[in-house]
């Protein structure tokens, strides 16, 4: 009767090793975006709020509904905010060579 639990624990352990393996080699430059990215991924907790709220009978006490509603709002904040912030950080690493060249030339002209 514990087969499901054991299967889940196996998944848990393997996922832990995947986490170690994927992350072990990251340049310092990407630490902040990476932290922000993993921060967005643990926004997966929104699934928990959805599952529990979804399976809650419509006539359940309002206290439970309010708690789960707040949980859902928090979880959504985590997901949406996390991915948007990560994207903004990463946008700065996109190559913008043409822009740099143009601005360097104009500044050179200013300096004479």
């Amino acid at each position, binding site marked *: 009767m514990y087969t499901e639990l054991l299967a889940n624990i196996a998944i848990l352990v393997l996922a832990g090793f995947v986490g170690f393996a994927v992350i072990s080699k990251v340049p310092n430059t990407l630490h902040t975006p990476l932290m922000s990215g993993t921060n967005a991924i643990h*926004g*997966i907790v929104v699934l928990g709020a959805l599952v529990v709220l979804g399976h809650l009978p419509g006539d359940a006490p309002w206290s439970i509904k309010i708690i789960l509603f707040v949980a859902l709002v928090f979880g959504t904040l985590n997901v949406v905010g996390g991915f948007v912030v990560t994207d903004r950080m990463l946008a700065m690493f996109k190559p913008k060579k043409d822009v740099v060249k143009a601005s360097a030339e104009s500044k050179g002209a200013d300096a004479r």
Partner: protein
Amino acid sequence: MSYLVTILYIVAFAMFIYGLMGLTGPKTAVRGNYIAAAGMAIAVIAVLIDIRDTENWGLIVGGLAVGVILGVPPALKTKMTAMPQLVALFNGVGGGTVALIAWAEFLDSNGFTTVDDVPSVPFIVGSLFAAIIGSVSFWGSLVAFSKLQELLNKNFEKKVVASAKLFQLANIVLAVAAIAIAIYIGLQADPANAPTPAIWIVALLVVAGLMGLFVVLPIGGADMPVVISLLNALTGLSAAAAGLALNNQAMIVAGMIVGASGSILTNLMAKAMNRSIPAIVFGSFGGDGGSGGVVSASGGTVKATSAADAAIQMAYANQVIVVPGYGLAVAQAQHAVKEMAELLEQRGVEVKYAIHPVAGRMPGHMNVLLAEADVAYDAMKEMDDINGEFSRTDVTIVIGANDVTNPAARLDSSSPIYGMPILNVDQSKSVIVLKRSMSSGYAGIDNPLFTADQTSMLFGDAKKMVGEVTEELKVL
């Protein structure tokens, strides 16, 4: 249909892993983030399919909408300098979600006495674990946010840091209390028993929350980046525990990956400071810093310089190393620095950037800011790569960095930061330190670099002073 849901979960967590792999390289990072976000969208669609017969559609759609409306504007508008606290905040609400779910589950099952799942043990243990860790992460992150946003009264903060030992004692008591309450709830969770009163789960959340507050409050100074990373890992673990409780594989995988990667990141950062995670959490050095400062402040004199002098020094150097710190972030001086570097490069001066792993308030904080100003990825050197070069460098300009350049870490065994790897700025032929005033760094420790013979100080706002230096360079 439940097969479809499971398959979509598998697709979703495969995309998380693939996306995360992308995030580890500068060229694939943007795409990696999109892939992870798409995986998240698939996971949410899967769960909506799973609960399609729900009677709470109004609350669900409303909750998602409110979350998006509240989350997107600050994420889009917050300045890059305030990113660390924003990440702390988003991390905190994630932990809060887990704690609230556990609370609702407790109420819904009359204190876990009427759990439908058989066996009920993983559900109960997972929920209780998630409740504790989630609450610690939520309140801890809120403290980290208010510290970085500088919402806390400075005097109050100093007092707290000074009495760190007291907080540690309280934390031991709180940890024991939390475990005891969790065990009591677990033992009461028998269908034969009367429902456990709701006060118990509230007590558990409050005790765990106090623990979160008390762990982060006395941690001062340079340790804050490590703490955010640690809290991030904790939220991941709590998500994995909630996944075990709810038998949701997507949550288990995503939560555990974050738990594992967050631990590694935390460890990397702690190592860069030559400190262990227990030492950071259980023994802050803020209290000792004051006394160390008094001793070293007694010797040496400070030489001030002008923007014109600094410009001349740098213009005739062969190599200039820029050492950015939190002051650069605060003053938003990255574009000004880039402009100055361009002028120097036109004169044939080689310009490099030395980035300490914990410069600023998060690892990589400086890289993100400099990248915003279009500084080339290759020009940013990591500590180990550039430390050998200082002795061959004519001018090192330190912009708003302090503790990460403090030679006391290498030379003074009585210093609280002794042993922390630093940028060996003091070895370069001359050093220009750009600083607002003579106040000590975030760690509260005096820096003998400022009184060294080869050092001259350029006092003022980083952006303004760099701008003045740039003007002087133009007329040279």
